[in-house]
Structures are given as C-alpha cells and as structure tokens.
C-alpha cells in the first residue's frame, strides 16, 4: 500500500504517457503511434518534407493560427453579445476593463489577417511546387475550399465589432454578392436576413463565424491531413526516394547535425511494422528503399518550432498594435470611401470597373480554374520542385493572375480615395 502511494506520481505519469522518452527506433515508433495527437503523423517522415525551404512550414503556420484563433475566439465569446445595441459597447469594455481583453482582441484580429495571408501563401507554395498533381488532386480541392472558408470566416468576423469599419465593409462586401446573376439578390438576402445590414445580419454572421465555419474548417482540415497520409505524404521530386544501393544520406540527416536522430539506414532490420495496408505507389510498405527519418523527434520539433514562432509573432503584433475600433455603426453616415477588408479590395477594385465581371465573373472563373488545375495539368515531370521548368506555362499563368490580383489589391488599398477616385497615398 505504502509502495503504491510512493509510486503514485510515477504511475499516474505512466498511465497518461504510455511510453518513456524514446531511446530506440521502436520507442520512437511507439511514441508516435500511441499518442492521439502524434499518430496523425506518420512514424517516419520523408527527408524532403523536412527541408525548411521546401514547405516553408506554411501548412503548420496555418494550423497554428487556426488554433490561436480558436482559443482566443472562445475566450472572446465569453464577453461578446451579438446584438446591435451591445456589440460595440462590449468591444469598448473589452479594451479597458477585461483582463487581457485588448490582447485577446488584438490576437484574434491580427491572427485572422495573418491566417488569410498564410493560407494564401500555402496555396501558392503548393501550386509552384506542382504538388496538386496526381495523386493529390482531391487534397488540392479541399485546400482551395479551405482557403475560401478562411476568407469567409475572416469576412464574417469582420462585422462582429459593429463599428463603422465593420458595417460598411460588410455592406460593400455583400453588395458584391448581390451582383451575381439570377440568384444575387436572393443570396444577399439569405446572408443578411434583411435588405440591409442589421440585427439579422449580425446574428447570422455570428453563428457562421463561431460555429458553422469553424466546424467546417475543422472537419476539412482533418480530411486534408488524412489525405496527406493516404496520398503518400508531401510531394517530392522524382529521385527523392533513393534506391537502397544508391542511398546517399545528406550529412544533416545522417546524424552529424546535432539534434537529428540517426536514420534507419538499413531497412531490412527495421523492428516495427506498419499498421495497415495502403494503396498507392508512394506509401512505404515493407522493404521499399526510401529516404525517411523518424518523425519523433525530427518532424515534431519542426512543427513545435513553427507553432512557437507563430505564437511569438502574433503576441508581438498584439502588444505593438491595437486592433482598430471605429465609431459605432451608423447606417446613415457612410464613410467615404467605404472599403472592404484588404483581401477583398482586389475584388472591390475590379467591381469599380464592372460590377458583374469584377465581383462575380472573374472571381468565379478564377476559383473554377483553381479547382480544375489538377485535372488540366496531368503531367508528372517537375512535381515537387519549386518553379520547375517543366511547369513553366502553369506557373506563368498563375503568377500573372496572382500579380493582377495583388496590383488591384494595392490600388484598392492605397490609391483609392473619396468616391473611389485615384489618389496618391503620400
């Protein structure tokens, strides 16, 4: 009995963490495999996926931001009331009288902007490395949908402070939706619950923002990760999987670099089994020679680093810059110009030339093109390499569209003054 009490801490620890810190390959495998959060990862990760400049960690940054946003968002929900009478006052209270209130709001605001940007960059990374190609077509589509959901999440959250910025940005944004042919007005009405932005719109945007869209994102992120595994890990260039006889392990991976566990050099003596059979040519089963390292600790350290970096950057931004809060929304007093959030300013700029083409036509074509890309580009050469010469055409078209949108965004952000007239920002 006494022994039991003495062993209590040790036993509690062991019951929670089933494995001691691993010192063998078996231990590393088991640690990864027996932990809910870690078993999402493969036991071994391809060395190419760990190259910092290949992925730039953008996927992990996106997830980190989503986690930060969820956490800060939950805390903000304790204080927020989605009512036109109270919402703005709650924002004011948050900034002075709630412990960490300003910080939470800042983190949520800057995190949201950062997430739109980072998810967009992630999409670019996947495109420029040709990673959308077979067999990852469907995961690309999920990724594009996730990008759109991120935009919608940020857009719906924009209304909630119920200040002038929010009110008029949403008025402009939803007006763009109204330009869609046939269903435009109905779509707008469905979104706002009214002809104008008001209490109905606020509650709808709130529910979308705190429940429906986060749930959808969570679900799709799970599918996204699942598909990464099932599609054979991250994309990599041809020849990254070295035949056993020619295996040339880079010094960093071989263990000369401090902190990286030595590779399992000889596949034949592996002590672990892969728990399940998977279709497809890329998943490593049996004795296929490869170029992998154990996920514990190589992958996990990299991921933790990305997460910590995200936390640091968002915290620093939140300390340095306060999220803007303008005067309470006033439906009879529009600011001039009223601008949509920055990521929609490209759209708004295009809308200023043609309501239908700028707001609906061009973006729809762009999204459809994005969704169809993996089915239009069926090549295999150049996959897994940044700006591959074999993918020149696709990259040039994508870059052109991207730059056009960026230019429109910059014009809309900085060069548009009252009445949407051209101005110089200095």
């Amino acid at each position: 009995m006494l022994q039991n009490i003495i062993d209590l801490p040790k036993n509690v620890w062991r019951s929670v963490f089933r494995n001691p810190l691993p010192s063998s390959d078996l231990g590393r495998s088991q640690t990864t495999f027996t932990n809910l959060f870690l078993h999402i990862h493969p036991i071994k990760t391809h060395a190419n996926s760990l190259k910092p400049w290949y992925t730039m960690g953008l996927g992990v940054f996106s997830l980190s931001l989503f986690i930060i946003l969820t956490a800060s968002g939950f805390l903000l929900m304790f204080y927020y009331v989605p009512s036109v009478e109270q919402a703005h006052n709650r924002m004011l209270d948050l900034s002075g009288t709630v412990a960490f209130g300003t910080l939470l709001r800042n983190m949520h605001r800057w995190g949201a902007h950062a997430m739109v940007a980072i998810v967009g960059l992630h999409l670019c990374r996947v495109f420029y490395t040709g990673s959308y190609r077979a067999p990852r077509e469907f995961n690309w589509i999920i990724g594009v949908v996730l990008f759109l959901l991120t935009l919608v999440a940020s857009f719906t959250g924009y209304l909630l402070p119920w200040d002038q910025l929010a009110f008029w940005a949403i008025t402009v944004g939803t007006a763009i939706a109204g330009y869609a042919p046939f269903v435009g007005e109905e779509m707008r009405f469905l979104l706002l619950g009214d002809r104008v932005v008001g209490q109905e719109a606020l509650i709808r945007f709130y529910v979308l923002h705190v429940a429906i869209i986060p749930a959808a994102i969570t679900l799709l992120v799970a599918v996204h990760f699942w598909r990464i595994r099932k599609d054979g890990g991250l994309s990599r260039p041809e020849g990254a999987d070295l035949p056993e006889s020619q295996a040339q392990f880079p010094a960093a991976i071989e263990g000369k670099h401090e902190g990286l566990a030595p590779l399992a050099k000889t596949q034949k003596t592996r002590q672990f089994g892969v728990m399940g059979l998977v279709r497809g040519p890329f998943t490593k089963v049996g004795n296929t020679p490869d170029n992998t390292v154990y996920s514990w600790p190589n992958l996990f350290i990299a991921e933790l680093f990305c997460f910590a970096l995200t936390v640091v950057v968002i915290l620093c931004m939140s300390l340095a810059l306060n999220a803007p809060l303008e005067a309470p929304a006033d439906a009879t007093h529009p600011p001039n110009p009223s601008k949509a959030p920055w990521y929609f300013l490209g759209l708004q700029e295009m809308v200023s030339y043609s309501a239908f083409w700028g707001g609906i036509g061009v973006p729809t074509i762009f999204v459809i093109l994005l969704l169809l890309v993996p089915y239009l580009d069926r090549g295999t050469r150049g996959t897994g390499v940044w700006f591959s010469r074999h993918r020149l055409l696709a990259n040039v078209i994508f870059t052109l569209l991207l730059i056009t949108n960026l230019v429109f965004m910059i014009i809309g952000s900085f060069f548009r003054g009252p009445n949407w007239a051209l101005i110089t920002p200095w």
Partner: protein
Amino acid sequence: MRSALAVLSVIVLVIHGIVFYDQFFARWQEYQSDYFAKAIAEPGTSDLVKETLRSRRPAIEQTIVRSFGAERVDRCQTCHIAIDDPRFESANQPLKTHPKIPGHKFETYGCTVCHDGQGRAVFTKAAHEGGEDWPWPMVSKDMIQANCVQCHVEPGWEHAPLVNEGRQLFFQRACYTCHTISGLSFGSIGPELTEVGRRRRPDYILGKILDPRATNPTSTMPKQDLTDHQRQALATFLKAQQGSRISRAPLQQFVSAQQARPEWLEVAVIAGPEAAQAMATQVAAKRGEMLLPKAGCLSCHKLGGVDGRVGPDIEYASAQRDYSWLMAHFKDPRSVVPGSIMPPYPLPNEAFVALTEYLTTLPMPKIVDDPAEEYKAICARCHGEKGAGDGLISRYLDPRPRDLTKAAFLKSKPHERLVDSVMNGVPGTSMAPWGKVLGQERAARLVDYVLENISKGGTARVATNRKVPTTNPVPFSAESTARGEAIFLDRCWGCHGKKADGHGPNAVDIWPRPRNLRNKPFVTAASYARLHESIKYGVQGSAMPAAGFDFNLDDKSIGDVINYIHGLNGLGGASQAAQTAPSPETQAKTGNTAKEGGEKSHER
C-alpha cells in the same frame, strides 16, 4: 533545430512575461493608490476615514447613467477619483476636485453627458479622445455649453452665451438660408445640420467653418470672415444640434418639432417682439434698412463698410437695379443670374418689398473722378487689381469675370460694345449696369483706361469685311432646331457640354470658360448678329474657334444652331423679331410688382 526551438521557447516565456506585466499594471491603479496615500496624509482626516481608505484597493469605479437617452457607462472616476473630495481643489489632474454645480449629482449625471468623451475607457487617450473616428471626443471648456443646452432647452438660456451668440450668427451670417436645422430653418442648398453635433467631431465643424473647401474642393459654401471667438460660438451652436434632445421624450420631441414656429421670423426678421413693433411703424424702406443686416445679406455682400467678401458690392444698387429686377432676384436669384450661388431667401414677401424699397432708395457713395480710382472702386472687386479676372469674389461668380488682360479679346471688339457692357451690364451675369453711376463719358474713359493699362500688348486681328446677317436666315421651326441640335452634338458639345450648359469635357482646361448657353437672360439679350458672328468667325482671346470656316458651316447651318440654342431657352421664333425682349418668365415673375421699367435693365 533543437537549439533554435530552445531559443524560441525562451522568447515565448519572455513575451508572456511582458504580456502579464502589460496587462496587470494600469495607470489608474497608480492614480488611485496615490489618492489613498494623499487622502490619508491630509490633516484633519478622522481615524475612521483613514481606516476605510487603508482598506481600499484600486478598483474600476463606474457610474451607470440611464436618465439621458441610451445607457451610458462612465468610468471616468476610475482615474478622477477625487472629483467629489473637496480637499483636492488645488491638486493636479487627474486628482482634482470637480467644481460644484448645484443640482448636478455625479451619480445621476455621470460625466460624459456634459463632457463627452468615451466613458467606458479607463486609459487616458482612449477615454478623452476615443480613437480616431470617435464622434464625441471630450469637448473643450467653452464648448461644454453645447451639451448644457441639451437639457436647458429654453431659447436664450443665459448660462450658454456661446450657444446664443452662435445662434445669432447662424442667422446673421445667412447660414439659415442654405442649411436646414429641424424646427429652425429650411434651407435646401447645403447639407442638413439637424444632427451635425451628434455626427461630426467639434474639430471637423470648426474646420469646415474655417475653410469650407478644405475637405470638399467643390463646395460652394462661402468662406465667412469671422473672428476666432465667433467661429467658436458658431461651432458650439452647431455642436448643440444633436437632433433629439436627451432630456425630452420622443413624443415631446415630435410635438415640439411639429409646433416649432419658423424662428427666423423672430430672430432674423424681427429680432424679437419689441423690434417687431418698432419696425412695424416704419415705412418700408426704413424696415428694409433695419432688416438687411439681420437677414444676413452682409455676410456675403458689401454695404456701408461691412464686407462679406463673397457677393457683389450693393452700394450702387439704387443706380443699377430697378424694383422688378430686385424683387425677381430676391425670390429666385437664379431667375436673373442663372449661375448665382445666392440661395432663394426663405422670407415673406413683405420682407422682400422692404428690402427692395430700401435698396432702390439707397444713396450711393461718390467715386473720385479719375479712371484709375474708378477701376479700383468698382471693377477690382470682381476683375482683380491687375484685371486678370481673379478679384476678391471672382471664385463665387459664374460666369467668371472677364480676364481683362486678354488683349486679343478686348481689342477685337468694337469700342462701343465694351462701353455698352460697362454702361448696361451683361444680362445673366454679375456684371451690373454702371451707366447711372458713371455716365457715358466716364464709362468710355474707363474703357480706354482698361485698354491702355490692363489689356496691354497683344494684338488682335481687326475684323474687316465680315458678313453677318442681322436676322436669322432660317425661320424658327422644329426641323431647324433638330438640324441645329445635330450640328451642336457634332461640333459644339465638347466644350459647351451636351446640355449646352458650358460644362463639356474639355471645359475644365479652357479659360475663359465656355459660355453657358442655357443662361436665358444672356441668350435673350445677345443679338442674333453677335451670336452668328461668334460662331462664324470665332471669338479672339478665347477658345471658341471660327466654326463657320473650321467646320465648314454656312450661314444657314449657323442659323439652325442658333435656333437650337434659342429653343433650349424657350425663346422660339419671337426672339428674332424682338431681340431685346425680356424672357416671358422673368416678366411673369416681376409683372405683379412693377410692370414699367422691367424691360430696361435687360436692354443692351
């Protein structure tokens, strides 16, 4: 990678430390601790109070005010904790005693009802200024009066002198003629100001009075010549215009707005019942004299040493304008000067009669008998000291005063026409007839003076051998105007505009501006020959080309165009026969008051 993660972890920890420090130590806590310490140290503090103070810990203090409109939460006392402690009268802010105002308890009134600012904030800048676009930053000590009168609604309340003065200025400076304030004025030219105090920051209101064009370059609001004090008073009055008064129930509000008498009758026209009686016993001209400064005329015009620096000089009105012109002008200034920025005055007819009587009997000042002095006295106000058409009030006139330095224009015109313009004015513009002021001889001398001293240099092709019909070779008909319109929309609209209002796409770069061909008094008065000549041979010194040659228009085509222009102005065929007939519309307007003499001012 591991060492990088280790470094990053340390940074994460440090930043969390900063975050906690940042969030847990606020300035208001220091202020409160300071207050407790000072209050305990104050001599004469009883032990019981000391004990209470010692046990107090810094906390957010707030007053929730429900009696004044929407619920207010004022946390000002979190920093200003000593406002009700009489011992801190000489202390520095934020620990200073608030002066006692009888009947105003902090618990009932809070702070922002009077001071504005953002009551929920507990940090200085956020509370006092409330962020960039907060519409209600703290008002200055003077401007607080604007908030006093939200409850103290009786007009002329003695403790709000700035508001009262601003209200007077609002009428004296003729603001009421353009702006609507519900229950007070009915102007429709400028933006409504009923809620301006609730919607606009005080600095915005002040800035707008100071320079109306600062934020809106196309504003036609005249810049008023006000002292700093007057500007402050006007801004305070406007700040007090908050639509609904917080002290009144909505029903009261509605009823009082419905019952509100147009107060300009008292303030502007009669200046109170006593003045009304005094005025009633006078003859009309005397009433006009009393009324003129009160109705705001001199906030733009110049008379008897007062100069609003916006509108024309009216010192010589008796010699320039007759009864019917003045009455028509009072009722609708644009009926006689289509480009006028003067608003139609919301005054009763008797007021116009009184003002007209006064102006037509006004003794006019003497002008020194010397062309240079004459030019300075009567021309320079519009045409500018150097004659470049950029005088003091030129920016408010449409069409702009003629640029007299354009020698090509002046020298290509016959001397008689120039003298005629001076003598009889130019109908439809602000150029007044100076004939009765100067006389033929002095007018001719003045023209010579201008030609010699201002229209220096420059050569003009002297027109010789021009063949211009004196009557339209094409009779007025629908077909003719249709042909004329086709030519106009082919050749003329680029400068004169599709509506022929002188605002074509090319007009912005053209100086002098293209003529507004919808200026009915002008078109009516211009002889057929003059229009024909201008189209056929162009106008030297302006951008008008010799369309007859450049565009190969024969006399008949030009006749079609002129028929079209006449048709636009509703002149029809009648104008050909009687080129100098006044427009039927003007006649109808002026007809009731004075039939005779109506035509004269329109003659050229």
